[in-house]
């Protein structure tokens, strides 16, 4: 079983968070294994099994139970790191050397895509699908 955490926190300005991976549907279609999506109320459902608003202990339990997890640069990668369970993180504009953990597979398309200022609110950065790695490549790491 694979756990996916597809979406980062919504931005105050209502725009799409530039850290959100744009090819989840394509990636999920490539995976022949049960997937549990975790997230919160209001987020797009990508898999039949979508578990919303789970408390932290239940998220920790799921992390332990899954074969591997896939996420983006959001709290979940830190929680899984805290649980000692490595997974795949799909990066775009934030820097995995600052916000990531070397225990994970950190997939970044190109360091040239990183935002110049890593420490501002992400509201000021436009979402750009071309800055993410292709789903076919992600599949190779599963």
């Amino acid at each position, binding site marked *: 079983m694979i756990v996916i955490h597809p979406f980062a926190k919504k931005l105050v300005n209502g725009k799409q968070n530039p850290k959100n991976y744009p090819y989840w549907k394509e990636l999920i279609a490539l995976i022949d294994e049960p997937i549990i999506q975790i997230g919160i109320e209001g987020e797009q459902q990508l898999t039949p099994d979508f578990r919303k608003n789970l408390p932290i202990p239940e998220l920790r339990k799921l992390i332990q139970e899954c074969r591997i997890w896939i996420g983006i640069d959001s709290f979940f990668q*830190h929680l899984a790191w805290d649980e000692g369970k490595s997974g795949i993180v799909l990066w775009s504009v934030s820097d995995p050397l600052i916000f990531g953990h070397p225990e994970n597979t950190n997939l970044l398309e190109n360091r040239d895509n990183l935002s110049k200022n890593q*420490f501002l609110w992400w509201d000021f950065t436009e979402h750009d699908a071309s800055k993410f790695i292709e789903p076919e490549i992600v599949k190779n790491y599963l």
Partner: protein
Amino acid sequence: MDKILCSVATRGRYHTTLPLVLSAIINQTRLPDKLVIFDDNDEPKDLRNELAYSYFFKMLDLKGVQWQWLFAEKKGQHHIHQMANTMGYKWVWRVDDDAIPEPNVLENLYRIATKIDNVGAIGGSILTPPLIFDTSKSTGKIANIDKEPNIQWNHIENIVEVEHLHCSFLYRAGVHDYNLGLSRVAHREETLFTYGLYQKGYKILTVSDAVTWHFKNPQGGIRSETQQELYWHDEQIFRNIVGNSDRTIVVLNCGLGDHIVFNSILDSIPNPMVFGCYPEIIPCRSIAEAQALFGDLDQWNIYKKMAQWNWTGNLEDAYRKLYL
């Protein structure tokens, strides 16, 4: 040689003590590299055509001292000092607009600051004639601040390590922030600032042969406010910070993931008192309480700190740098 910025915050003293202060700065035996006058007057004036000032500016030019006259935001002198603190100089010599330094002050402060390791701030005597206090038993410790006169209120014979300074002094810039949560009277701002440097492990020194004459003037001044509640507000923040000086104050005004990463170093932090947003990750008190207790929380803003440090390491190490 390190670059020194001299900062003067002024209000209501264009034609009383400010010219004396500027003259004293211009006649230092060791000149600063730059002088910035932060003008906090309600009705600021362009003084370039006033006789004395026009000569001051020409003298600064001739002596090769860059100068700048900035109109401040009238939010209090702590905001002014924080601007000076973050202008990119290694040292800032802050001089009050009614405190007239003798010609050797900057030279002696800088000489000792760079001779002794790890100096955070260094000040000399601040004398208000005709008052001379008996400081023979003064310790300069923050715990004794209500019980003893400040060591700087008399002639100083030897170098003394203290925990806080008063009025005018030379300090290492960019390593500790002024508390911007104080009111516009900025009561205790320099005490809190120098004590913060002390808490970060820097030496705070008082030294001989660096006398500044404090022409205490009831008119004008950067603290010319009469609202007692503002002083009370600032005093409470001061008492809360000093009263918890044996604790490591941790403020996590940030996201869930940041709390999780911070949690990995919590055990190595001595006697922590944690304020945060996610008690399910770390037992903590609320951010609102931290704000009420300590005023400004920016000094604990990990993202602001990483930006200031041009940080390229990982988040966990940034937390170590901030708290350990």
